Every structure is written in C-alpha cells, then in structure tokens.
C-alpha cells in the first residue's frame, strides 16, 4: 500500500489481510452472554501483535477486546478496521481514549447488526437463491453455483472494502453505514426477488404436466391452507407436519376413489 494514500503506518497489507481472513471465523465462539467477544479479539490479534510488543499492554488489549460485542459477521471488518485505526491513535495520544473505542464498538456493532442483517440475510441471500432457482430450471446444478457466486463475490469484496475503509477513516467510517448504494441495491433485489419467486411458484405449481388435475387443485389448496397458518404465526415445522398429514389423508382418499 502506498504510504501517501495510507497515512497510518503501523499495520501493513499482511496484517490487514490476516484480519480479513480471520473475520471469516468471527462467530467461532459465539455465546449468548457475551456474543462474539472472543471472535472480535481473535480477529484483532494481528493488530495487537503489531501494536503492543510489551506483554502487559498486550494482555490489557486482549482484555478490553473480549468485552461484550455484537455485530453482523459480514460487516464486522468495518469495525475491525476502525478499531485498529483508533488503537493506533490512542497509542499516539491523538485525541482519542480507550473509552471512545469501547463506545464506538458498542454503537457501531449494533448498527452493523441492523444494516448487515437486512442487506446480507434478508436481501442478498434470498435474491441469490431465487436467481439460482431460475437458472436451475434449465441448467440444474449450475443454479447452485450461481447462488454461491451471487452471495459470495460481493461479500468477499465488501469485507475487504470495509476493512480498508475502516482502517483509513477510523471513527468516520460510520458514514459507510448510510451508503445510499447499499439501500438502492437492497430495494432492487427485494423487488426482483419477490417478483421472480412468485413467478416460479405459480409457474411450477400450475405445471402443465399435472394439467388441471386434482393434484394441481390439491397443491393449491395446501398452498392456501399454509398461507393461512403462516399468517397465524405458527411455527414452520408445525405447519409442515400438519400440511403433510392433510396431504397424505387427501391422497389416500383420492387414490381409493380413483380405483
């Protein structure tokens, strides 16, 4: 990295890349009580090794980063980068304190949870799935490859981008959370995801192989019943078991009457 565009000097590309790779296992020691505290300290280890040569300082660094932490695993690099930057500034006595770091972690961790969960889990994942399913109609398992590509390529890029931005900008990186491109991408994917999923469902459920047989009518009936049960906020597993039971009884009756 060019020193001219990278004014903070202590962590080099290798350290940042190490943090990046570790961020993939951020949730390894997830616990209900302290959430991803150990994961946060684990990811930040390369920075700790570089910044604190004295064992006592290093232990203090480890202790303060094993405090409670909760954030989105895909956006965590943003916090990791910014905290590395802030730790350097604390070392340089550059207007930041350890309390600032702690407050920043708590506030931005929560914010990454809200933004990241919406973008990655509620939007990108279902969008990738629907696109993958569309492709798998004609190209079978290539649809699965497309799903993995749609989810993982942007995720890999964004993880690195946020780590770099976080390290460059420090606490100012919070502005990245309000990036309008993320919002626009989410909205577009939600629209296309919904449209294509409904298209696939209707086209599949009214498959011409079944024609307008009792199977089509039965599938439609089970579909309607399931929607009602989902609206009643019943658990997926319970609905599935109930509908399977009903479908089996209906099949037995129809099968007997067709004989």
């Amino acid at each position: 990295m060019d020193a001219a565009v990278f004014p903070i000097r202590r962590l080099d590309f290798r350290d940042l890349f190490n943090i990046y790779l570790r961020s993939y296992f951020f949730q390894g020691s997830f616990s209900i009580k302290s959430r991803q505290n150990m994961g946060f300290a684990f990811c930040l280890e390369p920075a700790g090794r570089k910044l604190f040569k004295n064992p006592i300082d290093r232990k203090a660094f480890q202790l303060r980063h094993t405090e409670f932490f909760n954030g989105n695993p895909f956006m965590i690099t943003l916090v990791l980068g910014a905290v590395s930057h802030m730790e350097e500034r604390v070392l340089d006595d550059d207007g930041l304190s350890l309390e600032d770091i702690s407050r920043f972690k708590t506030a931005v961790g929560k914010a990454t949870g809200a933004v990241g969960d919406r973008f990655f889990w509620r939007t990108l994942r279902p969008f990738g799935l629907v696109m993958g399913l569309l492709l798998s109609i004609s190209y079978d398992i290539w649809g699965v490859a497309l799903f993995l590509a749609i989810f993982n390529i942007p995720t890999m890029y964004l993880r690195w981008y946020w780590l770099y931005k976080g390290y460059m900008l420090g606490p100012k990186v919070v502005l990245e959370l309000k990036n309008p491109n993320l919002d626009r991408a989410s909205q577009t994917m939600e629209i296309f995801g919904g449209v294509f999923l409904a298209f696939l469902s209707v086209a599949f459920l009214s498959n011409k192989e079944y024609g307008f047989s009792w199977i089509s009518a039965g599938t439609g009936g089970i579909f309607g019943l399931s929607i009602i049960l989902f609206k009643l906020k019943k658990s997926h597993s319970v609905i599935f078991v109930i509908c399977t039971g009903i479908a089996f009884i209906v099949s037995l009756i129809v099968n007997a009457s067709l004989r």
Partner: protein
Amino acid sequence: MEAAALLLFVAGIVAMDTSSGPQCLISEPVVSCTILGILFGNPEMGLKMGVLFQLLWLGYMPLGAVRLTDGNMGAFIAVASMLSASVLFGFGSDQLLAAEVPSMLYAVLVAHIGMLMTTGLRKLNRIRNDTVRAQLAGGETVSITSTQLKGIASSFIRGLLMAVFLIPAGILLIGFIRYIPPAALTALVFTSLLIWGTVAASAMIFFWLKGRKRNLILGSIGGFVWMLLFSL
C-alpha cells in the same frame, strides 16, 4: 469406507459453516443436498430435495442469538439418510419418491435436535470465554486464537456427531418404506407432490412479510401468463 468418511467430513463442514464460519452458505440445503446428490450419483434428486428444504426454511436466518431449528443440518442428515437408504435397499423410482415424505418429517425432527445441540454448544462457549476473560483479568497469558479454534472445532464435532448417530437412524426409519402397502405408497408419492404447496407458501410468506405484496402479485400474474402461453 471412504464415502462414509467423506460424508462425515461434509457434515462437519455444514455444521461449521452454519454457525462458526466461514458462512459462505455451502451449508444452505440447496448446496449441501446437491453435493450429497453428486456423491450418491443422483444430483437431480439432491437438487430437488435441496430446493424443497431451502424454500421451506427460507425465512430462517441465523441472526444474533435467535434460537432457530437447525434446518441446514436437518436437511443434510435427512437427504443423506434417504439417499443412503435408496442405495442400501435398492429403492425403485416410486419408493424413492415416496421416501421424500418421511425424509422431510425426519428433517424437522433432526432440525430440532440440531437446535438443542447449538444451544448446548453456546453454553460451552460461554464457559470457555468467561474462563479466558478471568485469566486475562488475573494477568495470565492466554491464547485467544486457540480458544477461538476450540469453538470452531466444537461446531465441526457437533456436525460429525449428528451424522454418526442420526444418519444410521434415518436410514433405518426411511428403509421401512419397503414394507408399506402399495396404496399407501401411492398416497405418499402424491403427498410428495402436494407438499410443494406448503413449501411455496413458506417462501412467499418470507417476501410477503417484508410488505412488498405488489411484487408477489406481479410475479404471480407473470407466472399464470407464462403457464397459459406454454399450455396453448
């Protein structure tokens, strides 16, 4: 023997990817079941079962500390059991279709067991994390990396244990399909078709909840038009 070892290894990876990392979604049913289909020489069946479970549990996301049934492991163990039973007992095409129904029900059961095991694992992590923090506070030297690696390894072992105990149990359970009378077998084949109604509804409700009904209506109209055009 190699196939069994490979199956156990993949089970460990699926469990790890679900909760510990790298969370690149190879644990999602549509991926893991397709891999199983390829391993057992029946990729179409693997993909079909994967799509089915994927849509059923589309709304289940590992957000924060939410306790969710482990659909990923449920789907993996159930499909591995079904395909193993098919190879071991030489299922015919009707028997394989009928086996989908008990496999799906077995997946629901396994998913609940997976949830309980995940809760247990998180408790174990809490004890380990608290110990490390206490040691650090006392000025002791501890390896954060090894603590984290133990957490990741625990997830892998969870998957491995589930596969060791629940795949053979699943094979036995699904193997009973051979003794079912022909009328019930036919009914099960029909059930395997009808249940797509619930699966599609589960996926639709996920997008519906987000307050975007307009998109669903538009897509549904498109689906009907497409179907009519192809029927003509």
